[in-house]
């Protein structure tokens, strides 16, 4: 049966030699089961391509937005100053505005612009905004619906976290999982995400640290992804000390894709001049 699937993959990947291809197509013409299996594999590929296309749509939206912002700022910078046409015949006597009043108006405008810019920068470049932008959602489904030994509290927590998005309830349930339970590490993982979603970033960082301290993680958990979310939790919690820098730098230089690229992007954004104006 393995050869059967391998052959289908090789056929669809156009990796069969001319001779193998003819042989496969000849078998295909006579075997309805093979035809159906081939078509299931084709649909499987189409389904995965849909996932990838969706990912690209998201990236493209971001890239287009970046380009749009850049071109807007460039256009504004390059826009020629239009000459002001003044009809001398109709010119009315200019009102005398005192220097102090002019300065007051200018100062008010600057304050307003500065306040608006601060809000905008705060929304885009503050620690929590950056952390939210780069946050990776929790992986679920590893052992979901698994053994009979799964504690009721764990299931309650999972249902609250995944289906209800009730993070307070999820935290209460997962906190009850004892340290000797087989679900303890998983519970700590979900606690990390539940605290993150509740914006309790300090606790989230601690829980992720707890998970990472284990050498053996459940198969569905990705260590680098947890490290990445922990960095974001530290950032959002304002713990941007040397340890934070070290962790971020490690992923930016030695990390695995896609986190390496994300870490480099985050470093760039953290060094952005706009961050100086955010609060």
């Amino acid at each position, binding site marked *: 049966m393995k050869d059967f699937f391998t052959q289908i993959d090789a056929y669809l990947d*156009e990796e069969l030699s001319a001779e193998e291809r003819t042989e496969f197509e000849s078998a295909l013409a006579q075997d*309805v089961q093979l*035809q*159906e299996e*081939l*078509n*299931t*594999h*084709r*649909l*499987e*590929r*189409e*389904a*995965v*391509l*849909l*996932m*990838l*296309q*969706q*990912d*690209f*749509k998201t*990236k*493209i*939206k971001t*890239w*287009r937005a*970046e*380009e749009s912002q*850049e*071109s807007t700022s460039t256009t504004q910078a390059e826009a020629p100053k239009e000459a002001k046409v003044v009809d001398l015949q109709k010119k009315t006597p200019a009102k005398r505005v005192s220097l102090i009043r002019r300065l007051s108006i200018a100062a008010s405008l600057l304050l307003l612009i500065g306040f608006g810019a601060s809000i905008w920068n705060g929304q885009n470049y503050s620690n929590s905004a950056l952390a939210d932008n780069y946050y990776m959602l929790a*992986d*679920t*489904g*590893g052992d*979901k619906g698994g053994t009979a030994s799964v504690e009721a509290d764990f299931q309650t927590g999972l249902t609250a976290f995944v289906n209800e998005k009730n993070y307070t309830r999820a935290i209460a349930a997962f906190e009850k999982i004892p340290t000797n339970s087989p679900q303890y590490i998983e519970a700590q993982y979900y606690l990390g995400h539940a605290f993150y979603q509740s914006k309790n970033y300090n606790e989230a960082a601690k829980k992720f640290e707890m998970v990472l301290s284990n050498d053996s993680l459940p*198969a*569905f958990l*990705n*260590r*680098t992804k947890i490290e990445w979310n922990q960095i974001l939790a530290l950032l959002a919690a304002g713990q941007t000390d040397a340890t934070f820098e070290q962790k971020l730098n490690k992923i930016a230089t030695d990390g*695995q*894709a896609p986190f390496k690229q994300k870490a480099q992007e985050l470093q760039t954004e953290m060094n952005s001049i706009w961050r100086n104006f955010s609060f």
Partner: protein
Amino acid sequence: MKCPISYSKAEILEAVESKGATLQKMLNTVIKELCQCRAFDGTVKSFVRARGGNTEDAEDLIQESLSQLAISLMTKKYKGDSSIENYAFGICKFKWMNVMTKRGIDTVGITDDDKEKVGTDDIEGSFISEETKSSLWSVVSKVSGHCPQYLKLWAQGFSHREIGEQMDVTEKRARKNTSECRKRLRDLISANPQYKNMIQAFA
């Protein structure tokens, strides 16, 4: 139309053959550069505006077409007969003509040149209809946990060793997980009566 693209036609085709990380890097670079190419942007917007659409339509079309371009490259539809920007514009033209037909916009303005495909490059990209794609999306959304990540890496031609590196598991575990995820997806497809009929119809 000329865009500053870091990859030559030959390098694009080479990356497609290489698969995995090389393919992923090339796709991200080329698509991003096209996203930010003003000549491409202007050409598509002029084309759409001259044929019954507005700027918003053009923006949607660009986003849809460039995501289609990524898939067409991955599935080796692009043969290098034209430049990548002209090929991308070919996809835009093709898609916009479909929109015009759906909206009942007069297609008198479409020239023979618009109707021409770009060289021998195939720009349609898929053997299933748009309707089937949209219904297939409901199956895709049922694939949960770590499986979407495994499936996407597999579809881009990453080896099991590379998948293991990305998912932080051993090569053996990556092979097993990928295989299980693929089976889970195929089972979902086969279990759906709608697809069962389609599977037989394709045969």
